[in-house]
């Protein structure tokens, strides 16, 4: 029982000086080098971008309520879906889990005082703000209508919108992402506490490592690609210009070299969060730790070999398409390994259906559909029928919203007591988790059918016989929207009225639960020494399941 005193009792007082109270001026926030404060500032910023992207999404769904393009002109509609994509992907999905949850938790989980390069971390936040501001300027001026993919030659030669400003914004934002990834890898290599070996790392940290690899090796390529597009717009000539013998498909190669792996930037952190949730809320050591850890790395590596599956119908050589199609099937294997291991972890676990776990289980269901529909799209023949239909739209929303956003919300609920020291209302938490799951499926499952029927994406109008399913979809979107807005309310409410959470409200063994909530500026009172394996439940670790049950029965004060 020597470590029992380390684990929070659940009733300890909030310490007098934590990272939130250590300096309260605006300056102490804007010039902070504390990874936790930077994470909070990221949290606020990505929420703003998420809200804006969500408003665009709501507009799209409203327009598609009726077959005619009556709410928006077609030109406006092009801008709306483009901006929805740009804001959501570059300014919400990519930074969300790494920059918010990763930033906050990675150093704590490995027992470090901070990230290895705190000033670089702050710089990365400022680059994110700068990139975001420039992109927003472009949107205010009139927006972009190229689709988030910026395909040439439309984006370089013909589009009459603010491609340049938005492109520069994305370029700068890319370096924010690169610096975050760089910081994480350095930190994981050099800042682990004594006893924190590689195979004692929480799987979330492994996922952060894998995602950082993708950020460092992939993002610079999209940066140079966007830069080439920007130069080409200014110079009115360039290498993607078919008029002088350039090849627009080269743009697609360079763009997707990053943007397919970017899908894994979005979903790998989600998988990391879910690995935490599934194991911890089943009160059971995760099944196949090494397999999950290495499958994250495998996804990061193989994710770089499949980008051509976005170009099956764009003039790419059929032989290259065959190779890319085959490798696309291969990359499904590590994802499947994770799914099987999570399922095996649940088996005979003592499952606690708290809000985070509901999100985690939701992730498993939704990501399963997202992944399997991806195999259909990776099949080189079938994709000819499905390309550019709502099947594709639905597929990637299953992966990105059903996968990443759900995992992000799960992680946010899971670590909210640690980040703020306050507990939110469990009732409202569970309600919102259910609404998100139901609303999401109602929104996007009809789109799978619509896509299979042949409804093309990126059009404001569609044939009247497709209206019923579109109405379902829009109705689902409203449910989903409510489900996602609810956390804003009850989480903010908990800041003021929430019960003190205690240091270890979920009674878990991880390092982040062995410091106070909210943690002090340097994370731990003294340098922790790790003597236990990851996800080790049991008496030796001060976590007695019987004791847990007794306490569950007792009224909590």
């Amino acid at each position, binding site marked *: 029982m020597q470590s029992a005193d380390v684990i929070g009792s659940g009733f300890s007082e909030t310490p007098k000086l934590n990272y939130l109270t250590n300096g309260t001026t605006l300056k102490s926030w804007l010039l902070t080098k504390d990874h936790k404060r930077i994470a909070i500032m990221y949290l606020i910023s990505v929420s703003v971008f998420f809200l804006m992207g969500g408003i665009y999404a709501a507009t799209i769904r409203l327009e598609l309520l009726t077959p005619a393009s009556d709410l928006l002109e077609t030109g406006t509609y092009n801008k709306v879906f483009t901006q929805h994509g740009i804001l959501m992907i570059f300014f919400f999905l990519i930074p969300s889990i790494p920059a918010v949850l990763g930033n906050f938790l990675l150093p704590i989980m490995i027992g470090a005082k901070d990230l290895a390069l705190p000033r670089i971390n702050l710089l990365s936040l400022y680059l994110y703000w700068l990139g975001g501001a420039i992109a927003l300027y472009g949107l205010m001026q009139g927006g972009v209508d190229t689709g988030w993919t910026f395909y040439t030659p439309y984006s370089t030669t013909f589009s009459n919108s603010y491609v340049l400003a938005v492109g520069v914004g994305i370029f700068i934002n890319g370096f924010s992402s690169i610096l975050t990834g760089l910081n994480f890898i350095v930190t994981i*290599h050099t800042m682990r506490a004594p006893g924190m070996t590689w195979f004692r790392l929480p799987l979330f940290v492994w996922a952060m490592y894998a995602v950082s690899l993708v950020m460092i*090796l992939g993002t610079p*390529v999209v940066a140079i690609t966007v830069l080439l597009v920007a130069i080409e717009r200014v110079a009115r000539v360039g290498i993607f210009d078919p008029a002088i013998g350039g090849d627009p*498909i*080269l743009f697609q*190669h*360079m763009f997707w*070299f990053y943007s397919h792996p970017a899908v894994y930037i979005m979903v790998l952190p989600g998988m990391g969060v879910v690995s935490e949730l599934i194991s911890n809320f089943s009160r059971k050591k995760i099944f196949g730790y090494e397999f999950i850890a290495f499958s994250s790395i495998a996804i990061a590596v193989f994710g*770089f*070999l499949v*980008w*051509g599956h976005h*170009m099956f119908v764009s003039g*790419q*050589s*059929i*032989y*290259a398409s065959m*190779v*890319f199609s085959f490798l696309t099937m291969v990359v499904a294997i590590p994802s499947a390994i994770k799914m099987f291991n999570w399922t095996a972890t649940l088996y005979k676990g003592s499952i606690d259906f708290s809000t985070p776990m509901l999100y985690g289980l939701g992730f498993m269901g939704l990501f399963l559909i997202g992944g399997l529909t991806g195999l259909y799209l990776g099949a080189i023949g079938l994709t000819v029928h499905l390309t550019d239909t709502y099947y594709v739209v639905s597929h990637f929303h299953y992966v990105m919203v059903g996968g990443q956003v759900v995992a992000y919300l799960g992680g946010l609920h899971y670590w909210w007591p640690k980040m703020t020291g306050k507990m939110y209302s469990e009732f409202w938490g569970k309600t919102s988790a259910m609404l998100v799951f139901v609303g999401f499926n109602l929104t996007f499952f009809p789109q799978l059918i619509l896509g299979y029927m042949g409804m093309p994406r990126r059009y404001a109008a569609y044939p009247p016989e497709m209206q019923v399913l579109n109405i379902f979809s829009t109705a689902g979107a409203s449910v989903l929207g409510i489900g996602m807005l609810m956390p804003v309310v009850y989480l903010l409410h908990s800041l003021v009225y929430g019960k003190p959470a205690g240091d270890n409200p979920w009674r878990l063994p991880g390092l982040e639960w062995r410091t106070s909530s909210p943690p002090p500026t340097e994370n731990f009172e003294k340098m922790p020494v790790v003597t236990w394996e990851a996800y080790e439940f049991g008496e030796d670790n001060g976590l007695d399941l019987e004791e847990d049950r007794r306490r569950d029965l007792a009224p909590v004060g």
Partner: protein
Amino acid sequence: MAKDPEHVHMEHDHMTIPKYLGVFAVLVVGTILTYWVATIDLDFIFPGANTLVALLIAFTKMACVMLFFMHVYWSPKLIWLAVVASFFWMAIMFAFTMADYFTRATGVFTT
């Protein structure tokens, strides 16, 4: 905390001024060689032989700079890994992009 007398910087005393000058000489010779060899038509060996020779010299020069000027030779394995991985990833980008271009049916539409 007092300074640790055992604490040795990893790059200390590996390179001396004569060694630096030696590496420098190799780089200069490489530059002159690549300049000179580019004026000779090596296509009789096989088409593109000039490019291959130029790249071989460039890689040699790069290796010299990296190993000795940048001290990679004495660096931990992780640094080696970072270097190798970034070149490997660039090779992935080259290989899969060219896999498309080399197998495209270019010229089918020419008359």
